[in-house]
Each structure stands twice: as structure tokens, then as C-alpha cells.
């Protein structure tokens, strides 16, 4: 069965992130000049304008910053069987924010600042998505 939901199109800046997900690692960029960690990927460091960067593995732990529960599917043909689902902004322990789905609990169980940890779900042989599930407080 083909995967119908939107798939990331990795580009020259983002490919290491998606390669990392496929290998079960949540990778962030770190500036080699000032140490600032950033996400989503960019060529220049917004803190010091350096183009020097390396990829470092996130702890994979964070907290729910905000969330929504999608009940009306858009587009209907793709998401009719998925609702209700939770989309969240998670603030990782490293301080950056990432959009994701919260799985492994009822939508009603999601709360502000809830501790969560990354879990990976393969969408296609090339793309694995970083999702999050409830975690014991770290």
C-alpha cells in the first residue's frame, strides 16, 4: 500500500536530518563557532552568522509546548482514517522546538509541559518520521 500522507522532500540542508531519522537518531545542527544549536536546518547560524556547522544527536526528550487535536480531516481522502490525531510543538531539552505527532496516549491525555520522548516511525524506505510519546519526567 502506498504512503498517501505528505512526505518530506529532503534538500541539501535537511538531508542529514532525515538520514539521521532513518538511523533512529534525532539530529540537530550545532554551530562550530558559537555552539548555538538550531532547528530547522539553515546554512547560517542566526546567532553569529557562521556557516560552520556540525550535526549532534538530541537527547530525544522534551516537553509539549502546545498541541492541537485534528478532528476534521484535510484533505479528507488522506486523513479520514487518521482523525482524531494530535499535532504538537515539542520543546526539546536542547531548547529548540519541533513539530510532531504525539502517539501512545489518547488525545485527551495530552497536557501542557507533558514530558515526551522521540520514537521513530518508518513511512517509506527513505523517510522515517520523528514522533513523540509520553515519557517519564527526565
Amino acid at each position, binding site marked *: 500500500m502506498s504512503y498517501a*500522507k*505528505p*512526505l*518530506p*522532500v*529532503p*534538500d541539501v540542508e*535537511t538531508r542529514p536530518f532525515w538520514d539521521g531519522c532513518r538511523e533512529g537518531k534525532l539530529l540537530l545542527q550545532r554551530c562550530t563557532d558559537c555552539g548555538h544549536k538550531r*532547528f*530547522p536546518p539553515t546554512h547560517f547560524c542566526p546567532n553569529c552568522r557562521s556557516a560552520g556547522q556540525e550535526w549532534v544527536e538530541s537527547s530525544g526528550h522534551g516537553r509539549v*509546548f*502546545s*498541541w*492541537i*487535536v*485534528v*478532528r*476534521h480531516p*484535510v*484533505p479528507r481522502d*488522506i*486523513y479520514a482514517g*487518521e482523525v*482524531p*490525531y494530535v*499535532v504538537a*510543538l515539542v520543546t526539546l531539552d536542547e531548547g529548540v*522546538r*519541533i*513539530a*510532531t*505527532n504525539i502517539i501512545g496516549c489518547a*488525545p485527551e491525555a495530552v497536557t*501542557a509541559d507533558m514530558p515526551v520522548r522521540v520514537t521513530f516511525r518508518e*513511512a517509506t524506505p527513505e*523517510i522515517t*518520521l520523528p*514522533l513523540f510519546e509520553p515519557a517519564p519526567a527526565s
Partner: protein
Amino acid sequence: MYSLRDKYAIAGIGCTAFSKNSGRTVRSLASEASLAAINDAGLKVADVDGFVSFNFNDSVPAISVATEIGVPDVRYANDFLSGGNAANMIVLTAAAVIEAGLAETVVCYRAMNGRSGFRLGGGRDLSAHGITQFTAPFGWITYPQAMAMWCRRHMIEYGTTAEQLGEIAVTFRGNAVDNPRAMQREPITLDDYMASRMIVDPFRMLDICLETDGACAVVVTKAERARDLRHKPVYIAGGAYGGGPNQGEDLFDALRWPDHSHNYAKYIADDLWRSAGMGPADIDMAQIYDCFTYSVLMQLEGLGFCKEGEGGSFIGGGRIARDGPLPLNTHGGLLSEGYIHGLNHVLEAVQQLRGDAGPRQVPGVETCLTTAGAMTCGSAMVLRS
């Protein structure tokens, strides 16, 4: 900072019917609204020499409108690739263009088949290129879904409630009852609001604006020239456009926005009020960008009408009703009049300031705030009679 206080004015306004299925080209809607605005000003097509518009790849270039209505000498035309954030910025741009001598009389328009054609509410590029690769794969696709994330944050921080959002929806619908342009004129109650279908929690159907086919246009020219035209000029007292740091890679992207319980408004407030030489206490009424109920709260807070986090209680008790101390969205807003991407708010402001709003006229209006935008960037103006 906008430094042209009261030097430019809106001399004419025009619009098409607002519908779900215009059966017309977007170009012809833009042309109809532009002609109506030119006529309303008491000008001839040959008097117009500039156009400014904005679109989301869902409209037509300004030169095509100028061509259709036969403008003999187009000195300036600019199409911003923008969302509702630009609906006031294009009017400020028109003033700047005239001040620079690039044109003398500028038509600003927004035209769209927003329901029967390209639906902004229908979701984004599903191929997930660019910044979208970090949002769409998680089923985070539509603007209601984007804005609901902001609203939840305000609820977390400040305890904002569904009933408070409902008060906004009910009030604006009540205003639309008296507006023949409005697409939704049936009154609703708070019970109706609470019972409306949950689309993307915390947003119900009645938190979300309409999708509209239609167009609006305004004519901007020098104040002294406007004084010789048909209507009492509506002066552009002040304005601002922007949104501070981390506005993101497109209008949806707010991954790096510092605090989702506040939007662009708090970042432009100082420029706005200083440019107009006024403050919130000087404002008689406001037309606030209401793509969603919640966006009204962030703008009232950000522009200083109340303290941060207090928007929910501020709008209660009839304060924003037509007979209250701060009437809002007297036309019904994007929620009930229609979604011409915020330019319809400017039309309503002009009608109110002219004293020309019929049964929904608020007596004694001398100043009206208009705003445009809901998330990381936006624009606002202070208009006065």
C-alpha cells in the same frame, strides 16, 4: 516609522458582491471593485496611475486589471506575494509610492475566488518542500490547524476559554445581521457556538472565517486632492508593518517564534501609535483581523488595549459590541461578512468614518483602527475622519 501622518487619504472604496461561487474570473472581480472605488471617489479611470495588490498565487497581476479597465498611463504596479498580513501594508505602500512621486492616484485591491477557486483554507503544498517538510508530514497543513496551535498556547498561559472565543463570534455575527454585504446574517447564540462542530481542537467551526469569492478596492491619493473629491476624505493618520524576530520562512512557519501566545501586533505597536500620535485610548472603534476568533485577542493585547493575557476578559461584558465602548468589526468581520483577506476591514472603516454605514453606523466615530495579519507578521493603520 511611517512619517506621512494625515498627508494621504482614502478617497474611494468599492467592492463586488461576496459569494461562494462568483462564476467570474478573478480579474473581472478585481476590475469591478477597482472601477467601483474610482467611481466612488468621483474620479475617472484616466486619473488613476498606480496599482498595489497582494495575493497568494490565487489572483491576477495588477497590470491585467489596469489593462481590462483601460488605464492609459500606469506609472506604478506592484503585486506582493503575501497573505492577510499585507492588507494594510498595501495602503501604506500606496501613500509611500505617491510621496516618492512614482504615481499620483493609486488603487489598492484584493481579489479572489476564495471558495470556488483556490481555497486558502484547504491546505498547503502536500509535497512538503522547504520548511513545509517539517510541518506537513505530521498532518499540520491548514491555517486553522496552524492558528489553533497558537490559541492553545494562550489557553495554557492565560486560561482563555471557549466561551470567550464564542463571545467574539456571536458579537461579529450580530453586526453582520445589519450588513447587506455579509455572507452570514443569521444571528447566533453562545449555545450555537458551543454546539458547532469541533474542527481542530480548540477551534470549532464558528471560530473559523468564511471562504469568499469577491474583491475590494480603495483609492489612495494626497489629502489636499482628496478634499476636492466627492466624499469626506478618510485620512491615514498612522501605520506600521512588521513582526519582530523569527517571522519564519513563510506565513505558516512559526517553529522559531518565541512565544505563540503573542503575535506580530506587540512588535508593531510602538511604531503604529507613534506614527499616528495616538494611543489605544484615542481609538473610537476597530476592525481587527479575524481569520479566527482567537487572533482578535492577540491583537488587542499586543496593541495595548489591555494587558497581555487579559484579552479574553477584556472582550466580555459588551465592551466590543456596536453600542459598547470599543466596537469591533462592525461589518461582521472575516468571520461573518466574508474573507477578502482583510481589505474588507478597510472598506468598513472608511464607511464608518464617513458616517455612511447605514443601520450599523456607530455614532460619532472619528478614529478607527484597522489591522491585518494574525501570526508572525502583519500591518495596522489608524484612520481618521
